[in-house]
């Protein structure tokens, strides 16, 4: 006798899936209706914005700008996840280190992003390194905190199980430690991605030699809302692709067993 699970209700699943699919087109329709209603050049329609995307792409501005921003975000994201996870794991396992450095995390979490960026730009100049470092300084405390809490919540019972059956370290790591850690890694990756995009853009506005934020700042000088929205739409499209193409499949792969429990 197996328990009934959410997977056993296909009707509800189809309705839920249809609502998810209809969500973004509904937003576009609403946008089109409102823009047509107001009819102002500062509030362009989605069709205008689509045209501008095509124009900016052929002018070879959009792709290089996105490549630059995505590259910065990717480097900052990967480094932040690695360093933040390592700090979080150590603080989650070693109580005295957690006590000693817990306050630092609170400080890090509450330092305004803009302050970090300005200070690092003053100290290091308007360099690529300063920008990525500033993003990392914002992100690492968040990753470390999430991972630390995750590690603290690990099951002591499963540690005992591993000891009782004399499981070697690597096996313990793979079968007990990593599966418990992964939901927290994914949670911090997801919040981290959305945060990093935004911070990178702000920092590019503040000072950089290219990228989406840099370009939006230029459009701002000319009140070119259509171009700003063109960049924004592409930006969101990239995020949606990453969310549905990478994050969700990954989440399903490593946390699929949780849906059985739900």
């Amino acid at each position, binding site marked *: 006798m197996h328990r009934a699970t959410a997977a056993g209700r296909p009707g509800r699943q189809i309705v839920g899936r249809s609502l998810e699919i209809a969500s973004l087109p509904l937003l576009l329709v609403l946008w089109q209706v409102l823009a047509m209603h107001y009819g102002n050049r500062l509030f362009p329609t989605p069709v205008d914005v689509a045209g501008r995307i095509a124009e900016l792409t052929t002018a070879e501005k959009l792709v290089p700008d996105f490549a630059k921003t995505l590259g910065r975000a990717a480097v900052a994201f990967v480094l932040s996840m690695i360093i933040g996870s390592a700090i979080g794991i150590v603080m989650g396992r070693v109580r005295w280190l957690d006590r000693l450095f817990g306050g630092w995390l609170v400080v890090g979490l509450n330092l305004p992003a803009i302050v970090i960026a300005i200070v690092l730009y003053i100290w290091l100049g308007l360099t690529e390194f300063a920008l990525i470092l500033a993003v990392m300084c914002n992100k690492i405390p968040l990753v470390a905190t999430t991972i630390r809490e995750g590690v603290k919540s690990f099951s002591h019972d499963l540690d005992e199980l591993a000891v009782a059956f004399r499981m070697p370290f690597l*096996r313990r790591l793979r*079968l007990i430690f990593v599966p418990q850690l992964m939901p927290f890694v994914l949670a911090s990756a997801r919040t981290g991605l959305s945060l990093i995009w935004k911070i990178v853009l702000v920092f590019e506005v503040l000072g950089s030699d290219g990228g989406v934020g840099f370009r939006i700042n230029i459009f701002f000088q000319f009140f070119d809302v259509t171009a700003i929205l063109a960049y924004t739409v592409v930006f969101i499209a990239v995020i949606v692709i990453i969310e549905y193409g990478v994050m969700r499949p990954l989440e399903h792969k490593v946390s699929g067993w949780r849906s059985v429990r739900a």
Partner: protein
Amino acid sequence: MALGPRVKVDVVLKRFEGTGEPLFANLSFEVEPGSVVALVGPSGVGKSTLIRMIAGVDRRFEGMITVGGLPASEAPPAGLVFQDSRLLPWLSAIDNLRAVRPETSRDEARHWLDRVGLSGSGDALPDQLSGGMQRRVALARALSVNRGFLLLDEPLVSLDRHLVTELQNLFAELIAAEGSTALLVTHLAEDAARLADRTLLLEGRPARIVADRHFPVARQDRTAPEIARLTSLLSGEAKELTP
């Protein structure tokens, strides 16, 4: 047939983790190779803690516990059943067996699951199984690890009556076939009457052995009336045992 290991328990002092109150003081006993000892006593007396100490999981005590001449924590793993099922929720039943003993093939894992009445549930995740079924996966895991030494902490709790009898018979058969040494914590007098050669009744704080009963009739020679007589005797002797 080679018998299981000899277990020697010499605990000078073991304290409660939280309060520091002594749980065991000068507790000593020995379990002969190939014999089965049932530990009985009131809740909270320390039976499960003692099992965890013998399994080498709990090392925070003064004294020495040896299994086959080795300190408990260095001895090969026992076929251990914890008081709870303690399965890895992200692994199927089969993989739960293989997780603790990688040498176990999928077929072998399936065989052990069949033996505890879980044919066809090998690919199910623990959360897809009922509490009783999870318990049986834990039993199968212990049996698959067993190389002559079993530590069973309330192994048949939360199981249906007919399954209890079936699994008691399975344990009896496997313990006899392997010549296993086993320690069994139970509140079921019938478990002890059917499976054990000897019962140790623990009581008090710090806990001490207040009764050490060796059964005169060998396990394999016990008839149903003999088991019924022992069950009744044990439940009369230790009020925490239910028939």
